[in-house]
């Protein structure tokens, strides 16, 4: 791999939208623009975050409420409860059906889990 590949590449607008949306979904409470900036990437320009949030709002993917002079953003939940039920049903399927799902992470033995936990702890201490 070339050295230049280590520098974070510039993201497309669509990718940023997903990241902002993911941050809003991952937060427990509604977020201000500054919160979102903090939760996504501190190096991101405030104005960029603002633009993305407006775009998501126009698309109806997030809702916003005014709080003083700021806006508080939260993800719009549509038929997501239905999606949750469908997901639970899908996860209950047997291994034959499971193999089709391309998961982010699978198969972990107890030993491996222990090793990973140790690794995470170690890195945290070093920081």
């Amino acid at each position, binding site marked *: 791999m070339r050295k230049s590949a280590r520098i974070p590449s510039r993201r497309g607008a669509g990718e940023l939208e997903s990241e902002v949306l*993911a941050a809003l979904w991952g937060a427990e409470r509604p977020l201000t623009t500054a919160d979102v900036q903090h939760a996504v990437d501190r190096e991101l320009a405030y104005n960029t975050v603002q633009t993305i949030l407006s775009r998501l709002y126009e698309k109806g993917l997030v809702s916003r409420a005014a709080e003083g002079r700021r806006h508080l953003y939260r993800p719009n939940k549509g038929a997501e409860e239905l999606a949750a039920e469908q997901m639970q049903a*899908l996860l209950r399927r047997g291994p034959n059906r499971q193999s089709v799902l391309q998961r*982010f992470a699978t198969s*972990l033995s107890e030993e491996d*889990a222990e090793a990973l936990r140790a690794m995470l702890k170690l890195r945290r201490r070093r920081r």
Partner: protein
Amino acid sequence: MTVSVYIPVALSVLVAAISWLMAARLSPTRGTVITVVGAAVLCAAGTTWALVLLALSLLGFTTLAVEEATERGVVLVQPVPGVVGVLAAVALTYGVVRVVRVARARWATRRELRKLCLSCAPGELAVVPVAEPHAFAVPGRPGRVLVTQGLLALLDGKERRVVLAHERAHLAGRHHGLRATVEVCAAINPMLVPVREAVAFLVERSADEHAATVSGSREVTARALAKAALAEASGPRHAALGFIACAVSARVAALHAAPPRPDRLLPGGFLLLGAGATVAAVQATLAFYRLVHWLWLG
């Protein structure tokens, strides 16, 4: 029939053994993955065809051929024993049943995943309000990234970016198609199951490498992976353990090591073995054809 009819089977075993031993050491480049998939396809095709030829021997060509040969005073290469013909027919039938089963399961899960995505808001990202941490790539036009709220809550901004990049890499690289292909190969020829698992591992590694490039940090990628794996493992266990045990640990270890260098020799070796299986099948076909031709036309 000649010995070449059994060669595809032997080569399948060889390809399976090599992918089993080398999966963790192969570099997960697109070229390597495609070569391994290609070798699996060639082996599966060769074996299936060889089984067809062996099963056809049940039709009585060989007995006829032997009688004919003794009459004419010609010495024949040893004919296929009846047992082998029966075994081949059974294996072939079982293989077809397995392929149908795999195809049905894939089809049903795909449909369910699409339906799931339709219940979510439009856009690339589909979030399901489920506490268990999961992330899937859902192929389609356009493909979507399906993530649970539980996973998003667990990770920080950079780690979420890793997950998104990882799933996007699956979609962009059409990894589902590659996996489906080897799955069918392993269904028709169970000896290729290790190849299926090797490909599953390689596409995960490939997506990890892509995520590491996008996020700019192998360290953050490894951390996101470890966090997700631990959280997923602590919940109720849904999936059966993969064939290549400790796949996640192997992936984390690979991310802590230096970026992989492209392989040079191994992909070629894979293709060579696959090609060998095909050539042997063709040779067996020719022998079979000659036999039939000789029987009918003298």
